[in-house]
C-alpha cells in the first residue's frame, strides 16, 4: 500500500517538491493526500485488529455460561473499548483514508484543498487512541460504562474518566478537520467541467458524510464537556437534584449518535456504488436518485435520534414521532438497494473479490436494515431494547455493512495504489471465510435477543448456551480470517502488473492515471475531453 516515487507528471509542475522526502519525515510532515490516505488506512487496520482482539476476549468469555477468563469489570471495559475503537479508530479513519486517496483522483484535483490540515487530522488520531488505550493500565481500569458514556454510570469511571473525555475531544477535532477538508476539496477542486451531478457516487456520499460530521461532532464535544464539568466543576447538567436530567445526556448524545451511524454507512454506499457498475459493466442505475436518496437519509438522520431511547421515558407524542420518522428512512434506503439490483440486472457480471464483498454487502446490510425496522417499532422495541437483538442488528450493518464495503474498496483500488494485482485466490478465500463466519457470529444473536438475553453482561442463563457457543466459534473464525487480508497486503506487490484501467468495466478519472498512481497527479486540471469520456 505504499505510494511510489515515480513521478510521470514531473514536467507539469514546478512550484512544489517533485518526490517524497526520505525517512520518517515523509510521513510525519506529509502534505500528500496519497501518503496521508495510506497512513489512515494502515492506522485503521491496526485499530481493527486491536478492537478485534477485544471482541475475541468478549466472545471467549461468552463461549460458555459462567465466568471463565476475565472479571466482569474488565469485560465491561472490553465492550466499551471495543466499540470506541471500532467506531472512531477503525471504520471512520478507514473511510477517511479511502476519501484521501480517491477523492482527489476522482475529481481531478492535485491534492486535498488544505494539505497541512489534512496531515494534522491524521496525526491527532495516534495521540487520541494512545491516550484512550493507556486507560487500560490506569487505576480503576479502562472506561466500562459503555461507549455511549451515559451518566451517572460513566461518572463512576476511575482515573480513566478525564482521559476518556479528552480522547473523544481529540477524535472529534480530527474528524471535523478531516470533514472540512473533504467538503472544501469537493466543492472547490473539481475538474472544470465536472458539475455536481456528474460526480461519482463515492464523492457524493462523502460530501454528505462530511456535512454530517461537521454538524454533529461538535455536539458530541459539547455532551462530553458537560460530563466533564459535572464530574469536576460542580455543574448539574445531568443531576436531577440541580434541575438537570440524565436523560438529557442521552438526547444530546444521540443527536450526535444517529447521524454518526450514517457517517459510517454513507461512504460504504458510495464504495459499493462504484464497484457494482464496474463488475456489472453497466452504468449505475439512477445516479441522481441515489444522490437524492443519500441526501434524504442525511436529513432524516437528524430527526430520529430518540429511537435509541424508547425505554427511558418520553411523552407518547415523542415516541410516535420518532417511530414514524425512523421508519421513513427505509424509503430512501430502499431506493439505494433497488438501484444496485437494477444496476446488476442484465449486466455481464464477473465476480472478483471486490464484487463479492459488494454483493454480500447489499444482501447482508439489508438484513441489518430489516432488523432496524423491527427495532423502530416502539411497542416491540420495549421487548428488544438492550438485548442481543440490538447487538445483532448493529453488527449486521457495521461488519458485513461498513467493514465489508471497506474491504471491497481496498481490493478494488489496491491495484491502483500498488501497481500490481493482488492474489485473487487468496482474496476470494478471505471473502468466503469472512462471509461464512460473520453470519455464524451474528445471526444466532437475533435468536438470543428475541429470547431475552441482555447485552453487556459477562454471564448468561444456560438456555442461551448453544447459540452463544456458535457465535463464539464464528467470531474466532472471523478474527482469524482477517489475517488472510494481511497476507493479501504483504503479497500485494508480487502480483502481475496492473494496467491503468485495472478493471475491464472501470470508469472515472482515477483510472486515467497510471498504476501505481504517481506521487503527484492532476497538477493541472484534466482536459475536458478526457474528463468527459470518463464520466460517461
Amino acid at each position, binding site marked *: 500500500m505504499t505510494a511510489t516515487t515515480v513521478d510521470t507528471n514531473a514536467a507539469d509542475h514546478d512550484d512544489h517538491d517533485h518526490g517524497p522526502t526520505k525517512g520518517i519525515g515523509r510521513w510525519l510532515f506529509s502534505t500528500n493526500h496519497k501518503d496521508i490516505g495510506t497512513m489512515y488506512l494502515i492506522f485503521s487496520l491496526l485499530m481493527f485488529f486491536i478492537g478485534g482482539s477485544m471482541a475475541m476476549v468478549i466472545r471467549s468469555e461468552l463461549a460458555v455460561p459462567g465466568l471463565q477468563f476475565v472479571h466482569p469489570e474488565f469485560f465491561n471495559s472490553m465492550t466499551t473499548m471495543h466499540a470506541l475503537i471500532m467506531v472512531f479508530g477503525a471504520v471512520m479513519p478507514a473511510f477517511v483514508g479511502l476519501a484521501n486517496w480517491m477523492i482527489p483522483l476522482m475529481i481531478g484535483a492535485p491534492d486535498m484543498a488544505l494539505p497541512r490540515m489534512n496531515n494534522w487530522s491524521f496525526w491527532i488520531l495516534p495521540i487520541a487512541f494512545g491516550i484512550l488505550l493507556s486507560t487500560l493500565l490506569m487505576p480503576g481500569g479502562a472506561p466500562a460504562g459503555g461507549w455511549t458514556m451515559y451518566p451517572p454510570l460513566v461518572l463512576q469511571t476511575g482515573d480513566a474518566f478525564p482521559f476518556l473525555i479528552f480522547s473523544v475531544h481529540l477524535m472529534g477535532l480530527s474528524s471535523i478537520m478531516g470533514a472540512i477538508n473533504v467538503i472544501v476539496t469537493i466543492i*472547490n477542486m473539481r475538474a472544470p467541467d465536472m458539475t455536481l451531478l456528474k460526480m461519482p457516487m463515492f464523492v457524493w456520499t462523502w460530501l454528505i458524510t462530511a456535512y454530517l460530521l461537521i454538524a454533529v461532532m461538535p455536539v458530541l464535544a459539547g455532551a462530553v464537556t458537560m460530563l466533564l464539568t459535572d464530574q469536576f466543576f460542580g455543574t448539574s447538567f445531568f443531576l436531577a437534584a440541580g434541575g*438537570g436530567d440524565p436523560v438529557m445526556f442521552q438526547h444530546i448524545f444521540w443527536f450526535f449518535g444517529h447521524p454518526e451511524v450514517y457517517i459510517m454507512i454513507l461512504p460504504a454506499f458510495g464504495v459499493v456504488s462504484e464497484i457494482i457498475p464496474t463488475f456489472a459493466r453497466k452504468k449505475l442505475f439512477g445516479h441522481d436518485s441515489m444522490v437524492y436518496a443519500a441526501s434524504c437519509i442525511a436529513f432524516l438522520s437528524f430527526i430520529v435520534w430518540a429511537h435509541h431511547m424508547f425505554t427511558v421515558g418520553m411523552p407518547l407524542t415523542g415516541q410516535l414521532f420518532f417511530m414514524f420518522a425512523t421508519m421513513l428512512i427505509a424509503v430512501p434506503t430502499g431506493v439505494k438497494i433497488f438501484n444496485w439490483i437494477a444496476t446488476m440486472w442484465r449486466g455481464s457480471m464477473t465476480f472478483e473479490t471486490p464484487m463479492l464483498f459488494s454483493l454480500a454487502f447489499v444482501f447482508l446490510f439489508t438484513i441489518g436494515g430489516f432488523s432496524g425496522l423491527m427495532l423502530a417499532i416502539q411497542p416491540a422495541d420495549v421487548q428488544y431494547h438492550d438485548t442481543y437483538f440490538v447487538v445483532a442488528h448493529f453488527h449486521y450493518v457495521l461488519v458485513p455493512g461498513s467493514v465489508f464495503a471497506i474491504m471491497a474498496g481496498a481490493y478494488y483500488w489496491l491495484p491502483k495504489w500498488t501497481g500490481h494485482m493482488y492474489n485473487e485466490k487468496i482474496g476470494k478465500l478471505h471473502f468466503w471465510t469472512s462471509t461464512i463466519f460473520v453470519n455464524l457470529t451474528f445471526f444466532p444473536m437475533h435468536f438470543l435477543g428475541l429470547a431475552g438475553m441482555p447485552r453487556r453482561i459477562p454471564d448468561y442463563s444456560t438456555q442461551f448456551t448453544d447459540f452463544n457457543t456458535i457465535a463464539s466459534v464464528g467470531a474466532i473464525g472471523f478474527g482469524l480470517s482477517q489475517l488472510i487480508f494481511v497476507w493479501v497486503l504483504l503479497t500485494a506487490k508480487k502480483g502481475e502488473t496492473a494496467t491503468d484501467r485495472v478493471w475491464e468495466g472501470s470508469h472515472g478519472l482515477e483510472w486515467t492515471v497510471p498504476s501505481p498512481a504517481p506521487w503527484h497527479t492532476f497538477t493541472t486540471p484534466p482536459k475536458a475531453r478526457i474528463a468527459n469520456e470518463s464520466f460517461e
Partner: protein
Amino acid sequence: MTTHSDEHYYVPHGSHWPAVGSLGLLFLMVGVSSWLNGAGAGFYIMLTGVAIIIFMITGWFAAVIGESESGLYNTQVDASFRQGMFWFIFSEVMFFAAFFGALFYARNMSIPWLGGESNNFFTNLLLWEGYESTWPTNGPGNIGGEYETMPPFGLPLINTALLLTSSITVTIAHHALIAGKRTQLSIFLAATFLLGFVFVYLQGVEYIHAYQDLNLTLSTGIYGSTFYMLTGFHGMHVTIGAIMLTIIFFRVLKGHFTTDKHFAFEAVAWYWHFVDVVWIGLYVFVYWM
C-alpha cells in the same frame, strides 16, 4: 506549459507544524487529565502543552502569512480558505447548539417534569415533594444554596451595546479597506478589538459580582451550569476573536492586505459577527427571558 501561473493550485511542501500541534495536544490533554485526577505535576505538563500549541499556532500562521504575502495563493486557494472558514464557523455554531439545546431541554422538559407535569405526578410526589417548577432554578435539591439571578438590564445590556457597536466598527473598517482608506481602517479596527477587550473585562467584573455578591456560581444547579457554560464559552470566543483582530490590526500597520485580497481580515470579521450573533441568543435566552 505554464510556470508559476495562476493555474497552479499551491500545494505546500511538507510541514512540521501539524506534528508539533499533535505533540502539544498530547501534553495538554495528558496534563489536564492528570491534574484533574489530583496529580500536581499535571498542571505543568498542561502548561507545557499550552506553550507548544501557542508556538505551533504562531509558526503555522506565520508560514501561511508569508506564503500569502509572497503571492503563492491564487483565487482557488483563496476560495479553499474561505470555504474552510465557513465550515469551521458552522462547526462552532453546532457546538453552541449543544449548550443551547441543554438550556431549552432543561427549561421546557426536565424542570417541568420534576415539578410533576406531563405524566410525572408521582416523580414529583415521591422524589421531590413540594418542588414547583420555575425558571431560573437551581433544582429541587437547592444545589449551590440561595442565590440571585443576574439582572439583564445592567452590565449585560452595556455588553450587548459594546458587541453590537463592535460589529458596526468592523464593517466600517472593512469598507475602508475596500476603499483603500488605510487610516480609517486602522482606527475602526482598533476600536473593534478594544470594544472586544472591554467586553471581556466587563464580563470578568460581572462574574466576580455574581460569585461574591449574588452567590451565583457554576454549582448553582442547572441555572448556574447553563449560565456559566454558555457565557463562559462565548467569552472565550470573544477573547480569541479580539486577539485575532489585534493581529489583523498589526498586519494592517505592516501594510498587509490589498483592496481586493484580504481573506484573513474577512475571516476574522466573519468570526466576529458569529460571536456577536451567539451573544444575541445568549442575551435573549440566558439573561432576559
